[in-house]
């Protein structure tokens, strides 16, 4: 019994030592992300399972989407820069765990639908925005709600930790709407809750919920996405702080994609089938970020 105990202590002590020892080593390189990708020969790309058509698993369970295609261009550039055939390892992330996955270094870059915020910029690094949308609500048409203010006393599904949740919380408080919130993991669960009448509305980013409503629900004709943009949500690629080279590389790839029209091509490819066109704001964003060589 005593031997077992000392064995356990040794194991714990060993674990602590290895944890301590591993910390400083990782901090030394000047381009920590690029060098760790080159070292492993693999890049860990975070994706969302159901953020259609930005980042999702298609019918054949392949990771696909507009953001994923943009990120593939980034991976190509990383291959060129490191001179190695870097493998792509897709890691599923959720709204709730994406920041920790990035800041802990488990995921090298997240390619989904993450809004750039000033608070998040203290924790992680963002690329230049590649999309522009904002918080809107999805409701059943028979509810006849046209703005979030019409939801007084109603139940709303939100993704835990999303900027939409915060926007609705703030609106509920300032206008005395007395909204009740149900926390869901992703839009799939949110629309399940809406279709089974567990909630009256979903608050989410306008583009993704419009896409989901029209392509993945059982009765798309019963659901509509309504309301003004309650927040401005620019999406960016997320990665760890402290690697200026990696940031430049990502922004170069994006700027070239905007300038060459490749981004517009990807937009047509992914959003055409769900009948969504670039808004004037988005077109302006593409133009403004077509930075010359």
């Amino acid at each position, binding site marked *: 019994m005593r031997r077992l105990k000392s064995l356990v202590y040794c194991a714990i002590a060993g674990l602590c030592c290895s944890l301590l020892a591993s*910390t400083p080593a*990782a*901090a030394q390189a000047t381009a920590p992300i690029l060098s760790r990708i080159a070292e492993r020969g693999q890049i860990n790309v975070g994706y969302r399972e159901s953020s259609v058509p930005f980042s999702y698993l298609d019918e054949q369970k392949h990771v696909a989407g507009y953001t994923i295609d943009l990120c593939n261009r980034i991976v190509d550039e990383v291959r060129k820069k490191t001179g190695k055939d870097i493998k792509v390892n897709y890691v599923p992330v959720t*709204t*709730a*765990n994406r*920041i*920790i996955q990035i*800041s*802990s*270094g488990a995921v090298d870059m997240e390619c989904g639908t993450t809004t750039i915020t000033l*608070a*998040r910029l*203290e*924790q*992680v690094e963002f690329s230049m925005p590649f999309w522009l949308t904002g918080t809107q609500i999805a409701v059943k048409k028979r509810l006849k709600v046209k703005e979030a203010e019409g939801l007084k006393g109603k*139940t709303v599904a939100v993704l*835990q*930790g*999303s900027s939409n949740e*915060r926007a609705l919380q703030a609106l509920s408080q300032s206008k005395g709407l007395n909204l009740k919130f*149900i*926390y*869901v*993991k992703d839009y799939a669960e949110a629309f*399940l809750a809406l279709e*089974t*009448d*567990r909630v009256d509305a979903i608050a989410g980013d306008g583009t993704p919920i419009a896409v989901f409503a029209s392509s993945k629900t059982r009765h798309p004709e019963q659901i509509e996405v309504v309301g003004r943009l309650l927040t401005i949500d620019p999406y960016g690629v997320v990665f760890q*702080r*402290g690697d200026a080279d990696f940031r430049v590389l990502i922004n170069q790839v994006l700027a070239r994609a905007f300038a060459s029209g490749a981004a517009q091509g990807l937009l047509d490819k992914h959003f055409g089938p769900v009948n969504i066109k670039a808004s004037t704001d988005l077109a302006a964003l593409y133009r403004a970020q077509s930075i010359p060589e």
Partner: protein
Amino acid sequence: MNYQWQWGVLLREPYLGWLLDGVKWTVAISVVAFAIAMTLGIAVGVARTLRNRQVLRVAAVYVSLFRSVPLLVQLFLWYFVVPEILPEPFGYWLKRDLSNPEYWTTAVGLGLFMSARIAEQIRAAINACGAGLGNAARAQGMGTVQIYRHILLPVGFRYALPTLTSELLNTVKNSSLALTIGMLELTGQSRQVEAYTFKGIETFTASTTIYILMSLAVIFASRHLERMMAIPGMLSTRDKD
């Protein structure tokens, strides 16, 4: 790793309040779930030691049903499927009119899941009493109800107490699955705090500590209970430890 530690964020409002709210719900889920688990667990456990064939069969089906389906799946079934297959008004009541549907779904679902485990332990504990005790009681002229009430259950409980403690701990820890159906208990609130502050490592360290403290409190209380309830001569091997 360039991580900026900021423990202070956990003491700031509203985050501290959220965590405490999470603790409150974890306790509320655990208490109700364990009460359900004990009540049903004892009933089914006793049923599994009776001589009636029909009762035995029903109890066996109950235990294998709730033990063989993963808890997460059970919670999803209770939360997403059951309201849809019930007649419309009942389903709607479960989803909307019932206050805190997520709470009650978790508490009842977790309680039923744990009850199957507890039933097996109660059965084992009663069987551990041996045939002698029961036969001796019957020879004294006691009826079945009296035998269970005065002999088998009191002795069996003492055998089962250590494993029941583990089950209570499991109930507390399993309550964290409630977050998958949107219940903001301790783990759910930790995620919420993480989402707002991006201080996940600090937050989850804090909630881990809270879970450990809760477990230690349960272990301490049950040790005390075991000592208080001990019958001299019974389970005497424990003294040598």
